[in-house]
């Protein structure tokens, strides 16, 4: 079956963290233990949103050794496709839900002499699990976490309490800027850098690390992105013999699943490569939004990642 093995869970807690963020805790329905996981892992949450099946990836933020439950934090996105709104509005304690086994596309490099974490906003979630895992096994790290203001600095206090001076908080509205260039210039050889946050921050860190001469394989980004909305488009699935319309708040992958086509997937965020599909015919422009395909694949429109990418034009036929 596509998507791999599943975990049957029940919602144990729903906690409003601040105006934008709500935390959810899931426990095994049979009362047993969930698998341990590695810092940086995510789970794919299955939602039945009024007949629309949504599968959204969220970073696991709880202690990886706490097998009694998993926690995720969801930032409400009023302009998004609806997954975060569903989580905020409809998910209540006691509800049964289904999760994927943890998958890690943002792992720690455990050979590192030191780990340097840079987080922006909701991008803090993978680092909550990573810092707990490192603290337990004695790894060296520094966490630098930027948010708009103290009220939106989710988990800042608990991070400070747990890790003290290793945690540094910055508030944009107070003109308090993360001193990136300085940080990058004083890390011992063998340090690895990890960044998770809004796109602007990722680009900022990527270019600053390149300017500072950082080893490219020592710089890691949480790449997966929620699928964006867009204009509806038609697609023909050659092997299945079906033609579908992909709705504006639906991904191509979701449209195939809704039509009963079993398509492979893992991260649903354009990062893992599992859903890679050959394009048979393309008369128009594929809006490639993934981090997987090579620039050549994208330029020649020979492949598409149905979990995030969209299409504009006359005809799109794919090998599925």
């Amino acid at each position: 079956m596509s998507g791999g093995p599943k975990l049957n869970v029940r919602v144990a807690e729903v906690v409003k963290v601040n105006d934008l963020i709500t935390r959810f805790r899931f426990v095994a329905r049979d009362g047993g233990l969930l698998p341990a996981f590695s810092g940086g892992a995510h789970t794919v949450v299955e939602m039945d949103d009024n007949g629309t099946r949504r599968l959204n990836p969220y970073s696991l933020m709880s202690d990886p050794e706490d097998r009694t439950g998993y926690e995720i934090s969801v930032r409400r996105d009023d302009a998004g496709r609806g997954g975060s709104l569903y989580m905020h509005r409809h998910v209540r304690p006691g509800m049964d839900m289904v999760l994927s086994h943890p998958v890690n596309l943002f792992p720690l490099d455990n050979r590192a002499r030191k780990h340097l974490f840079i987080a922006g906003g909701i991008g803090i979630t993978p680092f909550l699990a990573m810092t707990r895992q490192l603290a337990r096994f004695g790894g060296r790290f520094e966490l630098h976490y930027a948010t708009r203001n103290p009220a939106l600095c989710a988990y800042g206090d608990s991070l400070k309490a747990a890790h003290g001076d290793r945690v540094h908080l910055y508030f944009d509205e107070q003109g308090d800027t993360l001193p990136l260039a300085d940080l990058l210039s004083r890390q011992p050889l063998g340090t690895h850098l990890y960044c998770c946050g809004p796109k602007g921050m990722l680009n900022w860190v990527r270019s600053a690390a390149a300017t500072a001469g950082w080893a490219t394989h020592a710089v890691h980004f949480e790449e997966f992105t929620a699928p964006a909305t867009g204009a509806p488009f038609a697609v023909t699935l050659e092997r299945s013999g079906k033609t579908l319309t992909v709705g504006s708040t639906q991904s191509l992958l979701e449209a195939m699943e809704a039509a009963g086509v079993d398509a492979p997937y893992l991260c649903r965020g354009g990062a893992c490569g599992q859903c890679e599909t050959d394009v048979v015919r393309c008369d128009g422009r594929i809006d490639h939004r993934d981090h997987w395909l090579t620039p050549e694949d994208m330029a020649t429109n020979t492949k598409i990642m149905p979990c995030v990418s969209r299409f504009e034009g006359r005809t799109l036929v794919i090998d599925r």
Partner: protein
Amino acid sequence: MSLDVEYAFDEFFRDETFVDDFTYRNSPAAIRRFPFPFDRDDYMYSVNMEPHVPGRKGSVFEKTFDVDEHYVSEMRDRARILAKDPLRCQSLPHMTLAGWDLLELIMESKAREYPQWFSLTKNGDRWRWINRPLGIDHSFTFLDETTLPCGPMEYITRQTQGDFTLQDEREGTLWVDAGMVTTQADWSLDFDIGMNFHEWHAPVPLAHEKGIFDRALKFLLKLQHGAPVRRFNWTMTVNPLLDTAPETYPEWGYMRTTLNQENMGHMMHLRVELQALFRLPRSNAIAFSIRAYLGKFEELVTVPKWGRRLHRVVRDIHPDLAAYKGFLRNRDAMAEWLSSYDDGAPTSPGWWPED
């Protein structure tokens, strides 16, 4: 280090050797469950992965980690090899957590699937492990190496048949960064440890050009926790030497020159590796279990289908593969011996003896 072990042989666990007087052999029941690897009359590489889910009852696929009549003797042979060469078990410093993942996976599987032999009781992080065939009763603290007599990977793989390697995932590939390797088909852990997937498979002929390793790697990077997979590999070994290591090649290499039509059935062994691959939870590493089964030619030809098929595979194999697998010099003699068990009749598809 040494585990405090008492080898308990009985009517099931055979007392036998894999060196010197070579008393190893399979019981009739073990021959019937031998994992014959050829599902057709010819052989070429393929990725050939399938989900590692419980297979036919009584088969080597039934349990997560098969424990058979050779268990106690194989563990004694492993201890013998490690006493002579501790470099056969190594773990780079960042792989200790993956070792704990492996220990947990094996202990939980064995206690669940073989309760007559193994038991695991947990009180928080205080665990008590009982291994009756090896006479071990040991309490330790999970994730605390100081409570074990050796590292967690070494501890559990001294009690588990088959070689193990642990692969770290970085930079879009897998790195063989830890392993227990004493039953290998001529590769050196000490030399290969730290290499990536394509590097440690570099000496394998033909398969790179066919894209086998590119496809296998892509598949493995998507391996998910809770969904292990398995595949076969095979080679030929003269005498029941589980340990055909490059390290000791000067001690066993000459045996390849001692074969003739009289001793072929007894001395030549088909060596089958059942490889199972597991994504590990805490470390995100991938464990390879590489379990070697040895079957004497004279044992295998007691199944008529296998006798016919083995003859055809050996006779027709690509010479580069025969050379890589180390039997090119004996290939014609092997085919000649096997030919008397091949009457030319058609064989049924699949590998099961009775189908």
